[in-house]
């Protein structure tokens, strides 16, 4: 990573820092760039916001159908078979 990276390169660091602890120099490069760049700062914030929204969405059970009764019956039968064997 060059010392003065482009926004494009910084978006890669921004994405990666969502998944992994960055090496120190990359971390510094990212922070220095974010301090100067409004667009990349927004990008970083929006990555966090997307993560938050997906978490909320995953936790929300409203409206999502549950296990259908036929499947439930079938699974119970399979469990019984396994217990009997």
């Amino acid at each position, binding site marked *: 990573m060059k010392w003065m*990276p*482009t*926004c*494009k*390169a910084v*978006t*890669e660091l921004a*994405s*990666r820092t*969502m*998944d*992994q602890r960055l090496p120190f120099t990359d971390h510094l490069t990212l922070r220095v760039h974010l301090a100067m760049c*409004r*667009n*990349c700062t*927004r*990008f970083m914030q*929006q*990555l966090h*916001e*997307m*993560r938050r*929204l*997906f*978490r909320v*969405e*995953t936790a*929300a*059970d409203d409206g*999502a*159908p*549950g*296990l*259908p009764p036929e*499947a*439930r019956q*079938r*699974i*119970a039968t*399979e*469990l019984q078979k*396994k*217990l009997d064997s």
Partner: protein
Amino acid sequence: MFPGELMETLDPYTWLAEHGDYLFRVARRQLRSDELAEDAVQETLLAALAARARYSGNASPRTWLTAILKHKIVDLIRRQVRETGIPRNDDGDENWEALFQADGHWAEPLPAWRNPQSEAELGELRRVLNECADRLKPAMAQVFSLREVAGMETEEICKELGISSTNCWVLLHRARLFLRECLELNGFSGAISS
């Protein structure tokens, strides 16, 4: 032999009754298919039954079952990838370069996202979120949902799916660029009335 309570947490019918719906919903979100989600639940409970002697009782049954479910989901995704022959190196047709100028600066300024002010507005944003997620290319959607929906670590995802970590990062990064763009184009940056 067992205290009654532990006996109950080890009963597969109790798992099915109490956690069946939950496991199904988690699986369905990631597999995007009722049929595959049912298979995932069944395989999870059968695996749990086979492994129940090793269940320590430290984690709640739901946590324990969910951990097993994640592996079953990955198995099913892997099988699906093989069956449909989705290329592992799917880098999509989107023109990523168009997001940036030749010198690497953003081509367009990024507008701020709005803060939903009402239930209706929030509902609308959730709808857009799900629609955009559905439009991810399969290879990207798999990695992205394992990371952001199932909350798995990238290392674990790469290992389970048998892809290189570089490939994993690229898929995640592109998924995020695509999603951000899609959300913005579909109302996330709607005019903020002040």
